[in-house]
């Protein structure tokens, strides 16, 4: 079984843009957060793939992925806390309702 690197990169890039799309179109804050997770995951795939295909003699990429996963979790935790707090004051988690400051 020999999947070329480009295939995997294609998947990761696709994931990246799906995440991007989600971020731009979804109005629910939680969904937007999930879209960002997609972007991060596409990066993870990249790292792992590069590590596996191009530079198999060290584990830089894989470790980086681990860090990203951990930090993403922290980020999500803080983000959800903020969204909850936001919901308390705004009674909504629709991004379009949260644009008081502008101009």
């Amino acid at each position, binding site marked *: 079984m020999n999947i070329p690197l480009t295939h995997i990169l294609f998947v990761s890039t696709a994931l990246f843009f799906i995440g991007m799309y989600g971020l731009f179109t979804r109005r629910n*804050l939680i969904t937007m957060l999930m879209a960002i997770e997609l972007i991060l995951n596409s990066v993870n795939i990249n790292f792992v793939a590069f590590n596996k295909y*191009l530079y198999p003699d060290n584990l*830089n990429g894989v470790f*980086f992925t681990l860090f990203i996963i951990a*930090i993403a979790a922290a980020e999500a935790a803080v983000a959800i*806390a*903020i969204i909850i707090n936001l919901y308390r004051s*705004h009674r909504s988690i629709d991004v379009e309702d949260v644009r008081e400051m502008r101009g």
Partner: protein
Amino acid sequence: MALDFLLLMKQELLITVIIFTLLLLKIGSDLSNAAVLNVANGLLLLNLLAGTVGNQTGALFNGMFFTSPLIVLEKNILSLGTLIVSLQSSSWLKKHEHVPEFYILLLCTLLGMYFMISAGNLLMFYVGLELSSIPLAAMANFDLAKRRSSEAAMKFILSSAFASGLLLFGISLVYGATGTLTFSEISSRLDGAPLQVFAFVLLLAGFAFKISIVPFHLWTADVYEGAPVAVTSWLSVISKGSVLFVFVSVLYTVFKPLAGAWYNMLFVLSMVTILIGNLFAIRQNNIKRFLAFSSIAQIGFILVGITGSSQPGTASVVYFVLIYVFSNLAAFGVVALVSSVTGREQVSDYKGFYKTNPVLSWVLTIALFSLAGVPPTAGFFGKFFLLMSGAGKGNYVLITVAALNMIISFYYYLRIVKAVFMDANEQPIERLAIPVYPKLAMFICVAGIIVTGLAGYVYDYIYSLSFGF
């Protein structure tokens, strides 16, 4: 090794200790807010003092962590800024329920910045960056009950996560192109291929997000406006300053092979940033929002200095950040005090300010003049050296555009001065008593604004530590 470890990482270790001390305080006792503030400020002063002794160059953890006198200086500048922010926010924090938490979050971000500055590896850098930004989002929401505070935090965390996603994508491409995450190795393996440039653009965007370069700046104003003043000042000065330090060293060392490309990018970005920052700043009515845009324009000037890509380039950026710490924090100090006592943050609220609060008015004015670059304040010297550094490359178009944009920036700084000194007001801000800590902070800032510029020694010292190519 052990001693090296202690010495080279002394600031990080100290901060960690402080964080844990505060954590224990929070858990173990119910000290009054005032006491917590005293302890925290004392510890921060200690941290600042510790930074000044026994410094040397060295690397730890196989080059993951790197330090040099310049880096220590940069950290000291941040420590100083932290101390000032802490002093200034005391009048706001005194009334707040979660003082130790605030300090813990604050110091976590500071720790992140320290690591980021000392990073010798992209992984280390990334961890430091995230450590310095995630707690900030929580801090932005620290006025828990305020709608705008939540909105600011939401905007910050989403934008920040998105930006770090793109940054990471860039890092992954760099990794894919070079096979390494170590700075020194990356620079030797770059050759200017399009993929590398693309990876660099993504990285640049990550940096640009943090330091608010146009068009990656749009979150800035909203977050500055919504966040508590202390957090805003922290964001605008310390957070930006730390990323700037890293930005300069990354550009000058890691991406040196791509200098041709990034020079042109910075050329364009700096002009756009100054111009857009200025144009938006002209008509802001909220003083925090106004300072946000003015700081964007300031970043544009810093970029001009960075384009110099020389020893004066580094020196002038570090020097300017130091001055910027004093100037911007002086302005924010006044705004923080006014905001915490009266809750008024509009520019029009400052009309007739001089009649009731002459001292605060002068502090604000000196700060604004320094930001605008009027001698004899330090801002003049800072901007002069930045532009001179940029001019060293012989790109006079950039210099001329930047210099002419100073006119617009003058306009909006003077607008505030005009409101303070000249405009009449039916209900001016009442006479404010200045507590000890903010007073101390203001004194430090004003002294810094005056001395940093006029005393040539400061610049000489920074210059002697700097590098370029």
